[in-house]
């Protein structure tokens, strides 16, 4: 398997921020993902795109949980977008697939 670069990039779509996460999210940099999500929530609703995440550990999941809880506290929208199979497997392990709003693409998340 080719190693994909670990990146987390935010894109402002006008009142809605898309946080694109790529690579393997683990303890070594999951705090960056957490910070990016929390900063994005300061600017509007947030969608976290996870299509290119090949692995996520529980520190990465914790970043998503914290973001979701934070969004709920602020009355903002929060969604996981195009979660990869690897991400879904970990969400399902803790039954979090029944907790997070999951959408296939950013249009569906924004329209919800």
């Amino acid at each position, binding site marked *: 398997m080719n190693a994909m670069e670990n990146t987390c990039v935010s894109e402002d779509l006008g009142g809605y921020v898309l946080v694109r996460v790529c690579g393997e999210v*683990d*303890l070594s940099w*999951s*705090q960056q993902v*957490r910070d990016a999500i929390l900063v994005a929530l300061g600017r509007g609703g947030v969608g976290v795109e996870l299509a290119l995440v090949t*692995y996520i*550990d*529980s*520190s990465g*999941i*914790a*970043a998503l*949980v*914290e973001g979701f809880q934070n969004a709920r506290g602020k009355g903002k929208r929060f969604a996981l977008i195009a979660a990869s199979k*690897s991400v879904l*497997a*970990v969400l*399902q*392990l*803790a*039954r*979090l697939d029944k907790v997070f709003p999951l959408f296939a693409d950013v249009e569906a998340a924004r329209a919800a």
Partner: protein
Amino acid sequence: MNATVPLIEVEQLEAWYGRRRILNGVDFTVNAGEIRVIMGGSGSGKSTLLRHLLGLHKPRSGWVRLLGVDIARAGERQMLDVRRQIGVSFQGGALLTSLSVGDNVALPLREHTNLDEATIRIMSRLKLEVVNLGGFQDLMPAQLSGGMIKRAALARAIAMDPKLLFFDEPSAGLDPVVSAELDELILRLRDALRMTIVVVTHELESAFKIADTITVLDQGDILMTGTVDAVRQCDNERIQDLLNRRPREIQVDADAYLKRLTEEAA
């Protein structure tokens, strides 16, 4: 670490308790992503092998490499790095009785990471959810049943998302439903969190359900390592005795027997 290096390599491992040899030059390899079951009856040496794999005993001879590190000769720093990447669920749980369940599970994260407390709280409670103990974080170990202790111990063992998980007798003392749930969980941990898992058990049903490969130990020797089907079909008499729960016939060496009974330092 090179991905092709086995996560566990044991070569010619000998273990002794006093004058009694427990492991007779054991060779043992576990590759990444594998679920390996170590099976054997009482006194087969499986617990001793596990204690050597964990670095709790030093080999009398031979060597044990975990994640590419020779653990008998590793420095403190190297060993700490290895320990960060392994999780152990002990048979009796080994929870710290003075800490709540939540604090027990959070302990490795507090000891080994600089994560902020909010992340640690979520990660440790997430692991309690995974083992079906969601909401039990404030209980003390003394308030848990045997099955709950076992699950809390597993939650602590996986707190750090270890590469390598050791699980000693997961089914012992559990009711069949909880036992089946744990078997299922072991499979899902491997698939979702890419763990390599070594399970020590004498429960055949559980072993056959979860194992990719089984190592059968008997009186300090590895009788075979193979797939579930290979073990089932093996015509080795001792293995068939184990599978069919036939009592073993103990060989009596008259000289050794009398020596044990009569000599002062037997």
